[in-house]
């Protein structure tokens, strides 16, 4: 396991849990999670996207799905997990947070227990679980990320987004001893911009982030760049996923490449 040094070894046939986080809000975490899920599903993976942005969930809006039964009902014990898992057009599954989750915007022992339980329960049934976290580095976000085997940080080339992504990397390196983080640069205007930005981030990390063990420095890997794409705006307007409705669009192709990299 490459992430926070978990106390338990990963049992056999358990999904790889990936946290998708960003620091800054509005850079496309949910967009990346959902489209990556479509691309992974196309490669035959069983994927579950879990809306872990409990305070300000919006996976339902992105997917245009408003199921009656949500994670909230699972947390309150009204419904089972199976009842809350929805099949999304595009071939993956989702667990939506639902409304009424504001009470979970602060970390409590109950929330910790429930999140862990939910992940443990679904993990054996999927190949990959994407945790679509909230923005920022609140204790809920950090805790959610700590449950993941791998971390994907989403950023756009905007200075504020890069600053927050970098701050997140710093905190994850210091607090969770993360040594290997993946970055996705969203809304790039020129091909190759993602590679440059990754290099830029890596240079600052090398200079300012001191790892506990100098032998294993923090390494950023570019998972991919998603081009700014009119097809994305079109799909969002129609409340659809670009990877589902315009698989030939440059952004959808980019997600295909991301998935290819993950599946090895």
């Amino acid at each position, binding site marked *: 396991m490459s992430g926070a040094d978990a*106390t338990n070894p990963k049992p056999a046939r358990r999904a790889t849990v990936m946290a998708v986080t960003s620091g800054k809000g509005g850079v496309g975490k949910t967009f990346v999670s959902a489209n990556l899920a479509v691309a992974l599903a196309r490669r035959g993976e069983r994927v579950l996207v879990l809306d872990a942005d409990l305070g300000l969930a919006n996976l339902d809006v992105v997917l245009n799905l408003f199921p009656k039964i949500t994670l909230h009902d699972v947390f309150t014990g009204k419904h089972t997990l199976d009842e809350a898992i929805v099949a999304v057009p595009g071939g993956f599954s989702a667990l939506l947070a639902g409304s009424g989750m504001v009470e979970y915007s602060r970390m409590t022992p109950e929330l910790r227990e429930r999140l862990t339980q939910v992940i443990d329960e679904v993990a054996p049934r999927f190949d990959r679980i994407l945790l679509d976290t909230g923005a920022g580095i609140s204790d809920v976000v950090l805790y959610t990320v700590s449950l993941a085997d791998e971390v994907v940080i989403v950023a756009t080339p905007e200075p504020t987004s890069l*600053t927050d992504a970098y701050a997140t990397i710093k905190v994850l390196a210091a607090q969770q001893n993360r040594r290997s983080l993946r970055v996705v640069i969203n809304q790039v205007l020129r091909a190759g911009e993602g590679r440059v930005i990754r290099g830029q981030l890596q240079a600052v990390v090398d200079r*300012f982030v001191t790892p506990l063990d100098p032998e294993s420095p923090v390494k950023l890997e570019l998972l991919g760049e998603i081009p700014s794409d009119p097809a994305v705006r079109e799909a969002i307007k129609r409340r659809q996923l670009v990877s589902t409705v315009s698989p030939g669009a440059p952004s959808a192709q980019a997600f295909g490449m991301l998935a290819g990299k993950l599946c090895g």
Partner: protein
Amino acid sequence: VQAPAPTTSHRLRLDAALRLLQQAGITLPQRGEAGLDDAAWLQLVVDGLCDLSSRDALTGLGNRRAFEIALAREVDRVARAGEPALVLMVDIDHFKRVNDTWGHAVGDDVIRSVGRALADCIRPMDTIARFGGEEFALILPNCPPAFGQSVAERIRLKVENRPVTLPAGDLVKVTVSIGGAFAPQWVRSSAALWVERADRELFRAKASGRNRACLEQPPISDVSAEEKGMLFGTSTLQDLES
């Protein structure tokens, strides 16, 4: 593990165990004393051995094994309850010099004295152990980050203000360096990583002159102007345009 039936316990070879307990000053009632059946007596022997194997022979404090058990429990508790907890690593300054100047018997006295000073500083819920050599380790559950530095400072001062008196009347001045780290709240972590972080602070305390306490600063999410300058270094992005 199945406990032996009391009827067979007389066949156990307990001489070595009983000798160890006696040497450590743990007194047991006579075997077969009124109201004490064989199993109950055997339980007392086992309890005594457990106690012995978790204590440090020189200082009577917990040993490294006891510390590691307590630490693993604390890691679990912190992740579940989200309460803050602090680990302090305490190392006697220039201990080799004490040994070289006064001999190992005085060295032992110094270790015992520091152990007592530390034990006087802690609350009943805290754990103190001799980690090894001249190094001690403390676990302070439920210690708010805002108090960490002053707690460590109090411990440092306690040792500094308590020189060791030698039989000949000489006073040996003793100081300690302290390194501390809080467990990350809510986050799954490991005992080894926690100690490593505190150790790194101890190293910092030593390197910056000893007789001081250094605590790991909470992870800083601030991004300095220097970092931003590098992050937005214009050159590379311009390269791309050309």
